[in-house]
């Protein structure tokens, strides 16, 4: 669970304390630690951890290479399956992926720290610099466009470039990385790793990124289709859900995602304004990250309010524990009914909730909490505005098994489709596989 953070008991945290609070949640393994950890791996055959990884990294293979001191080979093994193996090593919820499948659990032991080892190998390679580890195939003469420079888009771009195509990526933001850069918790991505990884990934060559270009605002799918041989849409979930309760417009009530983005972009975290009494509404990753980061910025009290029970939260048990060790108070079975204040929020009122007949309904009783900051983390959703005539299904872009949308030559992946969990690693897998599908398409055309 990492070092215990500095927390505020009424006094303000110093700049240094805040800086420490935003250092690596888990410091990277030292070579000695990596050696010991790697030697715990049983080198399973047809290993369960590999099946549990959405990108199917050859985990026993890369750990074995760490053990033999073949760090470059180890990193290459990881990156050939997952070009964002660095971010994934830091940010994957391994407790529900590879590490949950580790057979050591069945022997009554802690699983191998696969994520930490993965980070160790990849960061060694990135820090070492030198030639990009993958070579591009002979130029195909084909041009591919990508919407969104998040994990899905960049994974697609890298694989497409490797397969010999010329790729242009369009993103509305001024920096690449998507939520790696703007969304993941700061202490998971310490030392500006998102940008280091982007730079590394672009090292393959053949990828141009155009920033400040937004689909739907001067950029149209139809037009891209004419200018490029194929298009990949990896625009993520750009819109957020609203609560729809009175007082939502008061100042101090804001989207958790905006707040997190502000933290991520702040050079000096102590310059980010955080409330004294913070309420976070939601039960997922974003809610936990917003709550924990608020606490680490020096909020006196942080209460995470969720409408159902703790086990219904999409945040993993590990993340809930992280919130607890950061002195975040969890309140379950409560839905917001109103926010009050004179221009700025001062009081948040919640109604008790319960499940009845499989449905959530209001129960008797309300309670109010003092709050000068309310962070809404109740989910992101697709912004369909720019997607023209792509067929949607359950509020996501519809694709077939080969990541083809309803429009020929247009592929999609990442959070904007429903391939699996909305996770970085899934987005990378989508992008990689869509690139192979698009490669087959443009070569046959």
């Amino acid at each position, binding site marked *: 669970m990492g070092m215990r953070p500095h927390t505020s008991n009424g006094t303000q945290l110093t700049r240094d304390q805040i800086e420490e609070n935003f250092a690596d949640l888990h410091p990277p393994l030292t070579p000695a630690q990596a050696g010991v950890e790697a030697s715990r791996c049983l080198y399973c055959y*047809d290993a*369960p951890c590999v099946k549990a990884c959405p990108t199917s990294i050859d985990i026993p293979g890369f750990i074995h290479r760490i053990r033999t001191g073949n760090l470059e080979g180890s990193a290459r093994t990881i990156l050939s399956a997952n070009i964002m193996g660095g971010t994934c090593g830091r940010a994957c919820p391994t407790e529900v992926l590879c590490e949950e499948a580790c057979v*050591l659990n*069945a*022997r009554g032991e802690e699983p191998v720290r696969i994520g930490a080892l993965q980070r160790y190998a990849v960061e060694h390679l990135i820090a070492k610099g030198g030639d990009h580890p993958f070579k591009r195939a002979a130029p195909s003469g084909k041009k591919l466009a990508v919407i969104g420079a998040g994990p899905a888009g960049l994974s697609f771009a890298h694989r497409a470039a490797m397969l010999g195509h010329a790729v242009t990526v369009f993103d509305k933001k001024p920096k690449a990385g998507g939520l790696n850069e703007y969304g993941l918790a700061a202490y998971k991505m310490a030392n500006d790793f998102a940008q280091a990884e982007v730079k590394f990934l672009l090292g393959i060559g053949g990828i141009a990124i155009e920033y400040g270009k937004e689909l739907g605002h001067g950029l149209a799918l139809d037009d891209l289709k004419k200018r490029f041989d194929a298009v990949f849409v990896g625009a993520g979930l750009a819109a957020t859900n609203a609560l729809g309760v009175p007082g939502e417009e008061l100042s101090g009530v804001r989207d958790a995602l905006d707040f997190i983005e502000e933290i991520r972009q702040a050079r000096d975290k102590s310059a980010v304004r955080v409330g004294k009494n913070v309420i976070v509404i939601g039960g997922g990753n974003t809610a936990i990250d917003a709550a924990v980061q608020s606490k680490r910025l020096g909020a006196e009290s942080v209460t995470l309010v969720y409408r159902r029970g703790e086990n219904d939260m999409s945040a993993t048990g590990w993340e809930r524990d992280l919130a607890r060790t950061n002195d975040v108070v969890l309140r379950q079975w409560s839905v917001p009914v109103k926010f009050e204040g004179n221009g700025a929020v001062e009081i948040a009122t919640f109604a008790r909730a319960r499940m009845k007949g499989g449905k959530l309904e209001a129960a008797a009783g309300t309670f109010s909490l003092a709050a000068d900051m309310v962070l809404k983390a109740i989910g992101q959703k697709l912004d369909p505005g720019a997607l023209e005539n792509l067929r949607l299904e359950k509020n996501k872009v519809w694709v077939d098994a080969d990541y083809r949308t309803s429009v020929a030559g247009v592929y999609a992946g990442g959070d904007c489709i429903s391939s699996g969990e909305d996770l970085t690693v899934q987005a990378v897998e989508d992008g990689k596989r869509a690139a192979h599908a698009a490669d087959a398409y443009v070569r046959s055309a």
Partner: protein
Amino acid sequence: MAELSCRIAGIDSVNPFWLASAPPTDKYVNVLRAFQAGWGGAVWKTLGNDPPVVNATSRYGVHRDQTRAIVGINNIELISDRPLDVNLREIERLRREWPDRVIIGSLMAPIDEQAWKELAVKIANAGVQGLELNHGCPHGMCERGMGSAVGQVPEMVEKTTRWVKEAVNLPVFTKLTPNITDIVVPAEAACRGGADGVALINTVNSIVSVDLDSMSPRPIVDGKGTHGGYCGTAVKPIALNMVAAVARDPETAGLAISAIGGIATWRDAAEFIALGAGTVQVCTAAMLYGFRIVDDMIDGLANFMERSRYRTIEDFRGRALKNTVDWNDLNLNFDLKAFIHQDMCIECGRCHIACEDTAHQAIRIGAKAGGGRTFTVDNRQCVGCNLCMHVCPVDGCIEMNPVANGLPPVSWPHHPKNTLRVD
């Protein structure tokens, strides 16, 4: 209470745990600390005639397993590099201060009768209870015609042993080098020369690793390396076999055996004793962990003896020899099949890939209801080789079960498929 005191070649020892001739027995303070820690005896670091040798720096290389644990070390050290007289005065003092402990004088001299005899007498006069002739050192000394250069020539082993026996009235152990084809040959030579016992093994000739940056074998002395003597747990299997071979040889029956090589625990010691050793000697384990390891050796061995109802070392010494036979005496009708306890299986797949790639394709993968995999043995394919059991990371999960085939024992000389069988 089990009794650990024992007698070997007429020498009484409070327990069978001696330190082998090496750095741990190099001088007064080391041996003092060893006796304080509880060691029953020490074979003093090998002495030669003055002037003393000069040692190189660095001296040790190591061989590690994948957990970084050291499985063996090698050394390029020579014999004692301190003046003979200094050593002898220290031996005298320790003998006075620790009368119930054993000190054996180890010696090495050029092939010259007078040199061996004079050195043996000087050391004997310091009060040692016995002598050990170092015919083992596989590096440095052999380039000067000593150590393994002597140990590899049976005639010289015999001759030097005889010289020393003629010169002194003390038990003499001839220490054997493993760097030969058949250990029984020099053991028999020592026997003919009148040795009371043999001590084995000395170190195994080795290059422990190569530094791939400087392209030099380790340990590196100013950019260069040389072969050295390998010891530690890695050499235990070699030593066990050699001890058993000497113990089983009718010609050397009656020779006392002080066993050496990779002994680190009471269990190692018990195994050597079960193969006929009267005392055991330890070097590497003490070098890696200090003299304190003898604590566990002492009470571990005593507890084992209690459990097994052996009152003295003699009660189980050599007990495993009757079951140590030639391959030709093995029962070829004995059959085993691997059995995998499903409730203990953690689904790592190691048994499957080991058998599939390198044994007999006998382990099947199946799908488990509710996810996961099962591994089961196909008895028709299994030859009972044990490989799967050994690679399985869960102790006891794979069991090797005897097959009740009702067949009488048959060994190869009598086997129906042996065209030269004797009926």
